Structures are given as C-alpha cells and as structure tokens.
C-alpha cells in the first residue's frame, strides 16, 4: 500500500478491481464503509463475479478474467480523450515530458526486442534519451513525438470502448459510466483509491495489471494524496513483512538485491546500483544503497565483516539465474534436482498450481521438513484420501518430518500489515504440546550445523561460522533482540558529518532512522526500511496511542510504519509544485516557507525546496513513471495479453499466447489447453468464511462454510443440466475435482469476441485435513505458469470443463 487502511476513509471513490476487499479483507473494508458513510464516497467494483464487495457497491461492472489491462488502458484512453487529467500533477510529477529512444516501439501487442527463442525481450531500446550532461532529454510542451506523453497516447489509442467491450465482456454503457466516475477524480481536490489483491497479481501479467492502475492514478493525480494511492491488500497478516525482510530468492532484506554470479565482488555489485539522478536536483534515494547494504552485511557477520573483505560479501550466496522462485524450485524438484525442502508455514500442495505436478515433485524428495502449526496437506501428500488425494502411498519414499510450530497468537513479535505498519503483538496463549517457535527451530538447526562445521569442517564454512550470533540465549534469540537487530545500531560513536564535533549516537545505541546508516562499517541494521522501529526510545512498534489529531487516520503514534513512520508514501505529491496542498481539507504535509511539515512524515528531505526536488524520491528522475523503462520484463507500458489459457485469441496479435515472457516451462506450455476442449473460464478466489487452508481446521469457520463448491451462472447450469446443490465434476488439462454446485445470478455469461464466455468460480479453501468436509482447491486445475516479473501463478484465468455427476463420487 502506498497509503494505509485507515487512510481509505479519506477517499471520494473506491475502485475495487483485482480484489474483493469485502470478502477477503473484511476488517480493512471497514474504512471503505467509513468513507461511504462519512464522506459520501462511491464504491465501484469491477469483477468477474458480483461478489460481496459488489453487494455494497454503488456501481458494478463484470469483466472477463485476465482482461484487466484492456479495461485500464481503455479508461486511460477515455480520460485523455475527455481531458480528465490532473495536468499540474502530470506535467510536474510524472515523466510525460521525458523523451524515449527512437528505436523503442510497439506493434502487434509486442515491444521492440523480442527474442522468441529465449522468451525474453532485449530491453536496450526501452530507455530515455540521455543528454550529454547525463540527464534525460525532455520536452515540456509534450508535443515531441518521442515524449512519453505522445507515446502513451499512441499506446492506448487501440483501447476504445468497443475494444474494451469486445475483449473484457464489460457492457459499453457500464464501462463508460465507470470512466466518468473515475474521471471526476482528476480534480485536484478529489481522490480515488485503488484496492486490489490477488485478482491482479495471479496472472501471467499480474504486475502489468497493477502498473495499469498506477498509471491511471498518476494521470488523475491520485498518488501521494490522502484517500488516494495504490493499495495492495496483502492476503496474510504478515505477507508484507515477508517481502520486506527479503524472503525471496533474489532479495535480501529491505528490497536489496541478492548478488548474481556475475557480480563477483562487492565493488562490481555496487557498480550498477546507487543510481545517479537522471534529472537535476533529484534525491534519487537509492544513491544510499551502499549504506543499507553494508549495514545489512554488518548485521550478518558482525566484526568479521570488514572493508578489507568487502563486508563479507563473498559469503553471500550468488544466483546463477535471475531467481529460484517457488515455481522453478518445484519444477526442479519434479525433475529430481532437489532432494531436501523446508516448508515453513507453506502448504504448497494446496497453494501451487497443477497439484499432480506438486505431488510428483514431492515424491522425488528424499526429505521433506514441514514447519507448521497445523497438520498440512503438504505434510500428508503421501496419504491416500480417495478422490481427495489419490496417491499410491507405497510408491512414495519421501521421508517427512513435521516440526510443530507456534502460531501467531502464541508468540511475540511484529507483523507488518498492508499499510506497512509494524505492529507488535504479545503471546495470547501457551503453545500446545511440543510446538516450538520458528526461531527456536531455526536456531537449533543453525547451532547443530555450526557444530558439524566446527568438528568436521566442510565446503564454504564461512557463512555459517562467521555469522554474528550474539544473543542472550543462543538457543532461542528473543523477538526483541531480533527486532533491535532489524532496526540497527551504531557500532562506533557516530558524529554529524556536517559538524564532526557533534555526536549523533554513541557506540551501541539504536539507530533512530536509516538516515544514520553508514557505508563505512560503523553501523549495522538488518533491514534498512525498518530503521526507526526500535530506537533508543524503545519499541516503536508496540506504541498504542490511538489519538489522531489531524482526524485523517494517520495515527502517528500507533505502531511504526516503514519507512520512517511515514503513513502515505510520496506524500510530497499531495501538494502543488509550490508546496500548497491540492486539497486544504486533506493536508498531509505542506511547505511552511522553511520546511515541510504536517501530520504525516514528509516523503522528501524536509528542507528540499518546492519546484526543485521531485516527489518520487526513490526514482532517479524524481517523477512517477508512465514509461517504466527497463524495470519490467514484459514492457514499459502495459499491453493487453490474454491468459495462457483463454477462450479467445489476443485481438492485438492472434498468434501471441499469454504473456510472451512469463515464467513457464516447456512441458507445461505444451500441456496448455484450448477452448475447443475446455470451453469455460475458471477463476479462483477466497471466501470470507475462511482463511486460506487454516480455518478449515476450526469448527466455527467450518460451520459457516462447510463444503467445497463451485459457482456457475444459471445459463451454464441450464446448459449442463446442473441445479443448485448437485454434484459436479470440473476438469482441466491438469486434473479434476468434484464439488457442489452453487448456481447464481451473480455470475453472468459475458460476450467476448462475439461469443458467450461462461465463468466458473472456484474457491480455494478445502483440502483433506481439518474439521470441514474434504474437498479440493483451485490449484488442482490451475496452470503451472507465473507472472513475468514476480512469478505469481496464473490462478485467476484458465480453462476448464464441467459436467453434472450422479451420486457421491
């Protein structure tokens, strides 16, 4: 989230698209209710199903799964055509004036530089024209044919309302009504918020869906303002924390990069980072990259990390490929290239696509270790449960170790919510049986491996032996110790660079912010963005002051929001170029003549003068980007791409299948189905009554939603002779499931490319363990293909078939 849950109450228009906040985030959805009740805000829902969010919406439009980019580009086109643009914002705070290289282009749904063999783009041409001074060439008139503005206009030209209707199945009148409602928020004093979730990410072009809305929000001047922003609704209480602390194979904490094999030493690694500004005066905050990385390395290796050894850079693993995402790991596992796997709070048998492939992969493991508070299906993947898990147990030789862990309510620590708030929590219950905290388990493994290294030696002992492990109880570090380490502290006395006589921090004191980090080894901090969470003043995450003097839901003294306790990112953009708020009734910060001040922490150097420094300080341009350069693998503009399994050809290029650079493996691609055999579109989702695959273990949740079902329209039901509550079989090119049928008016067949498209809704919550009835999830059927940038599986749009079955199995 650029903003926070509580900020949503400040909005004038909520657009829920690519998510279902009422259903999957009911507690956060309260702030939509607040905005509606107290501000008269409107709610628009665009979704394949008339869902729980739609039930309280002011306006609803259906959309075919996987066609969001066409819709969003269509809205952008409409806004440009009808001059619903916040011009002051767009001209000053975005890169519309920047000139793009002459050799960049887009045709037939593809950008320049595609290599079909490698399934990737050569992105050389996706770049600005750089002047001799090292800065981007610009044309403030926006007339230059290579200006981002002109390229954008060209790019969206194809997405007419007719194109949208034909591609998305959204009736034109509904689409236009939504354009109008959205267009109104281009007024400087109007805000629109985008609430999205896995409805946008779980596509082979998920990141581009989100880009599409981000661009629209820039166009309307809705980024950085109260009640605006791009608000990703995280589907798990701490999934934000997971990405923050770098639990991805290609990241280290704080969104720093895991080194590549080609980056043999620290100097090489740093040579492509620490971006220089692309426009004069810009902060280009990543210039501080080295400070964050060195502090991280010091946190890892302590005294062992020195300038002489590149701060222990050598001891970090180096990636030989872009990343080992989960899909790649499971593909490798299936091919016998992985023999041990730890599933830590991860029920992959139900959450990753093509369950048959998962079972096959797990069966190739020698050792599976499952750390979980619950008995997961993954840990029992070898058990035969009839149709619900039809495996030949005798043929599976994998050894499974289950290590019961505590759950969130049984231990202490911080979870990071969607609004980037690190909220400390305390144990509310005693762990049952032999359950141990994850920290205890990991520590025990570490200490035992270390002992083996000490006693027996081995390959590359340094990362283990040099690891800093300075805890009161090495057997189980305390959450407070780990949190203090994430925050970071001074290792030597720090002096003010501007005034060397002035002591900033004594050695051993906690940092009060990432601004104090140094790249000379004098500070340590495991996750730079968390700096400030546990300062000399104590645990900022445990703060529980719910006073809100501004009345804008900022709650500065409730918990801690990264970065720097800032509640609305890019909040400099909430003011006009002279530093006056666009909407004086919703002032986050403003320039008081000397510095930036206000209810929120300014997202800019407090003394940075208006008109000098752009609001998007992380970007070397200082602006928000319509043209995203080489930052995304599938193009600098979002372009409509069909799902890999789609009922229609891509109207921009009938030969193109899915996202041409998506994460897909050759044998999986071959098995993709066509609409000839699998005529219906399946989409997966959550239900309010359950949380993932956890709550089916709970009786109360199981009472409220006891049994697996699929949802279909009355029309499809009539066609297939299915009535409500009967049993159906749904199958894809990868597997089959049995479910009860919910026949509803809330799913309507859509007319796309002149033909009706029927949608089958498949919730995800059932398995063969727990209190609820045995069932399936969507992943049995889903295709093994992931987003081009973030490898999220394409669960939201794929093809299936359905039939009525008699009896119970």
């Amino acid at each position: 989230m650029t903003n926070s849950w509580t900020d949503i109450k400040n909005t004038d228009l909520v657009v829920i698209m690519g998510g279902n906040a009422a259903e999957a985030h009911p507690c956060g959805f309260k702030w939509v209710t607040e905005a509606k009740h107290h501000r008269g805000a409107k709610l628009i829902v665009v979704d394949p199903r008339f869902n729980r969010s739609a039930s309280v919406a002011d306006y609803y439009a259906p959309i075919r799964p996987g066609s969001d980019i066409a819709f969003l580009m269509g809205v952008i086109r409409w806004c440009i055509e009808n001059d619903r643009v916040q011009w002051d914002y767009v001209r000053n705070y975005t890169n519309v004036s920047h000139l793009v290289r002459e050799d960049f282009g887009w045709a037939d749904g593809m950008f320049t530089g595609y290599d079909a063999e490698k399934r990737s783009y050569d992105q050389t041409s996706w770049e600005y024209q750089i002047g001799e001074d090292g800065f981007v060439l610009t044309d403030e008139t926006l007339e230059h044919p290579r200006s981002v503005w002109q390229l954008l206009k060209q790019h969206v030209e194809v997405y007419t309302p007719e194109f949208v209707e034909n591609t998305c199945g959204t009736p034109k009148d509904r689409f236009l009504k939504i354009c109008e409602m959205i267009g109104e928020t281009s007024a400087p004093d109007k805000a629109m918020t985008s609430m999205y979730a896995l409805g946008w990410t779980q596509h082979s072009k998920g990141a581009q869906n989100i880009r599409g809305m981000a661009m629209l929000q820039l166009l309307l001047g809705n980024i950085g303002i109260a009640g605006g922003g791009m608000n990703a609704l995280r589907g798990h209480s701490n999934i934000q924390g997971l990405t923050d602390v770098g639990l991805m194979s290609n990241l280290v904490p704080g969104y720093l990069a895991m080194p590549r094999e080609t980056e043999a030493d620290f100097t090489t690694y740093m040579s492509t980072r620490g971006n220089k500004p692309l426009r004069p005066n810009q902060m280009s905050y990543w210039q501080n990259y080295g400070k964050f990385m060195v502090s991280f390395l010091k946190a890892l290796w302590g005294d062992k990390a020195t300038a002489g050894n590149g701060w222990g850079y050598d001891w970090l693993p180096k990636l030989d490929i872009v990343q080992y995402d989960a899909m790649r790991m499971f593909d490798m596992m299936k091919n016998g290239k992985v023999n041990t796997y730890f599933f830590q709070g991860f029920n992959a048998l139900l959450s990753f696509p093509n369950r048959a492939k998962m079972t096959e992969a797990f069966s190739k493991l020698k050792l599976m270790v499952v750390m979980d508070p619950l008995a997961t299906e993954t840990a029992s993947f070898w058990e035969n449960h009839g149709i619900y898990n039809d495996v030949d147990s005798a043929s599976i030789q994998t050894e499974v170790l289950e290590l019961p862990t505590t759950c969130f309510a049984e231990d202490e620590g911080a979870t990071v919510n969607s609004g980037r708030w690190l909220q400390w929590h305390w144990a509310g219950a005693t762990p049952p049986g032999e359950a141990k905290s994850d920290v205890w388990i990991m520590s025990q493994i570490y200490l035992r491996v270390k002992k083996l290294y000490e006693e027996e030696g081995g390959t590359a002992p340094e990362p283990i032996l040099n690891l800093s492990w300075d805890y009161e109880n090495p057997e189980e570090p305390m959450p407070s110790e780990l949190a203090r380490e994430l925050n970071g502290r001074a290792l030597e006395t720090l002096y003010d660079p501007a005034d060397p006589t002035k002591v900033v921090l004594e050695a051993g004191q906690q940092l009060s912010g990432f601004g104090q980090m140094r790249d000379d080894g004098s500070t340590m901090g495991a996750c730079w963005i968390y700096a400030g969470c546990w300062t000399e003043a104590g645990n900022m995450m445990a703060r529980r002051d719910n006073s809100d003097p501004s009345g804008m839901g900022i709650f500065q003294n409730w918990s801690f929001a990264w970065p720097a306790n800032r509640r609305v990112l890019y909040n400099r953009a909430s003011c006009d170029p002279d530093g006056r708020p666009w909407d004086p009734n919703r002032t986050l910060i403003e320039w008081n003549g000397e510095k930036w001040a206000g209810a929120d922490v300014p997202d800019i150097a407090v003394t940075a003068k208006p008109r000098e420094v752009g609001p998007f300080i992380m970007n070397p341009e200082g602006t928000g980007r319509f043209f995203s350069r080489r930052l995304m693998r599938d193009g600098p503009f979002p372009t409509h791409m069909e799902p890999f399994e789609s009922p229609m050809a891509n109207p921009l290029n009938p030969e193109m299948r899915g996202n041409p650079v998506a994460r897909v493996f050759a044998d999986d691609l071959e098995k993709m189905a066509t609409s000839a055999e699998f005529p219906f579109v399946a989409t997966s989702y959550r239900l309010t009554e359950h949380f993932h695959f956890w709550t089916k273990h709970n009786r109360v949740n199981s009472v409220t939603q006891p049994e697996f079902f699929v949802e279909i329209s009355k029309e499809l039901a009539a066609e297939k002779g299915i009535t409500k509550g009967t049993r159906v079989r749904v199958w894809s090119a990868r597997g089959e499931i049995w479910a009860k049928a919910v026949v509803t008016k809330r799913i309507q067949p859509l007319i796309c490319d002149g033909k009706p498209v029927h949608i089958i809704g498949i919730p995800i919550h059932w398995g063969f363990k727990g209190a609820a009835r045995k069932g399936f999830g969507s992943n049995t059927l889903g295709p093994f293909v992931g987003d081009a940038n973030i490898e999220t599986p394409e669960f939201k749009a794929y093809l299936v078939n359905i039939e009525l079955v008699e009896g119970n199995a």
Partner: protein
Amino acid sequence: MTERARQPVTAAANPPVSPLDSNLLPSDVVQASAISNTPMPDRLLDSVAKLIDVSKCIGCKACQSACIEWNDTYPEIEENVGVYENPHDLTPDMFTLMRFSEYENPESGDLEWLIRKDGCMHCADPGCLKACPAPGAIVQYSNGIVDFISDNCIGCGYCVTGCPFNIPRISRTAQVSKKCTLCSDRVAVGQGPACAKACPTQAITFGTKESQIALADERIADLKSRGYENAGLYDPQGVGGTHVMYVLHHADQPSLYSGLPDDPRISPVVAGWKGPAKTAGLAMIGLAVAGSVLHGIFAKPNAVSEEEEREAEDLVGDSRKEV
C-alpha cells in the same frame, strides 16, 4: 461488593477489566410469560436497540462466528446445498444467520445481492412471550430485551408458533427453546452484543434505541442520496416496534430480504386462543362444573324405581314365557 456495571453505550466499547456486578436484574423484568401480575420495577432501564444496516453488511458471517463463540454453542458442520447460508437455517445452536437473496431490481436493471442477518427481533410485544405457557420462561426486561430463561422452559414449542419472525428453535438435546438473547449477559455488564462487537463494517451497531434511530436516519439520508428512494427503517409497529431494527434500501418491500415479514404481527390465531377465548373457555368449563354440581344438589336424580325393577323382571319373564 464490586461495582455495578453501567448501562451499555455502544458495542464497540472495550470491556471493563475489573469484575462488575450485573446491571440486568430479575427486578428489571417488566413482562414474563404466563405470569399476569409482574410487579412494576422501581427503575426503568434505557431502551436499547441493535441496528442492522443492511446496506453496510457484507455477509461475512463474523456475527455468526462471534455468536457461536460467545454463546459457546456447537452447531453441526453441514453440507453445501448450493447456497451461501450455512447452517441452512437458524438452529438451537445458531441464533443468528446471514441470509442471502439475489434480486434483480426492475427499475435500475441492476442485480442486488441483499444480505440480511436474521435473528430475534426482540419485539416490544413479543409473540413468543404471549404464547408461552411456562411461567417465567420468557421475560422482557425494561430495556426491551426479550430473553428465554432455560430453567423455566419446558420445550413445548409454543413460542415457535407465537413468533411472527420464525426465530425460536427447540434444542433436541436440552429440550428447551433457544434464540438470540441480545447478549443479555453482555449487556448486563455494560457491553454490546457479540455480533455487533465483531462486525467489521459496523453494519451492526448497538446503543439506546433513540441513538440507533438517529443513526438510522443518517444512514437513510445517505442511501436516499445514492438513489434508494425507498430506503427506510424497519421497526415494525405491528409488534409494537422492535429492539433489533434494520436499515433497508427497500423499506417498502421488506420481503425482498429473504422473506422479512412486510407487516409482522402476532398471528390472530395465536392472539385469539391466548387471549379472550382462553378466559371464556375456562369460564365455561367452570360454569359446566358448577352447573352440574348445582343440578346434582337441587334436581331430582334420575333414579330407577322399584316398579321399573319389577317391570324388568316381568319383561325378562315374559320373554321366557313367550318362548
């Protein structure tokens, strides 16, 4: 002696941390089933109400879950029968239920998914209480809560027929009637109902009836501004008003909401046999008994005379003779 709990303000209020004495006492009962002369309480509690704003409700069932948890009930894990209602109906272990109906609005052409939290309405004139034959099994407190006192309940099910909203359910194990208590045990210590506390969108609120009507007015104005011209409050006067009220988008058609009665009232059949007819019947029985006794005392008994005995002998004899 601990402090007496205050009267509840809102459901959102946090619970007290120290023990409190109940503030909902037997002496606050103003009406009890099968007891005609309830003494007038020496104080009157503020009239309370739960307001269910259907236009804010997302059907998440947090209220159902909270209800199960707070009341410690144990509903069955049923099967899916093709609908979102689970359990499929109110049960003795499920005092409240989200009901879902899909309505195609003929005026706007839009689909509406009308979701209503069903449960006891806590009528000012409770049909259950009227129908109940067991003294004190159903009571009404001066704050409006209608509560079932299981210790006095005989499980006869008359309340089921008395209720205009089809709410009470008889437990097959405990053989007593069960329904929403409006969390009288929470209200007694200054808390609002568990469902209201759990509701994430504050579609369920709780407070004095006056405050809830004021809130409803605010909501109705908002709904009217969004084009719901018939938005209104459901506080049906046919049962004297209720202490659970709805804000409806279509207050002119309550039955759209999964059959919420358009004009609920205690069935005349029930009102009839529980009312004057019963008294008249008893009186007539009494008269019949008294009449018989009087007749027996004052009238000549219908006795057989000696002559008739002889005649019988003759008759019996005659018949022999005849043969």
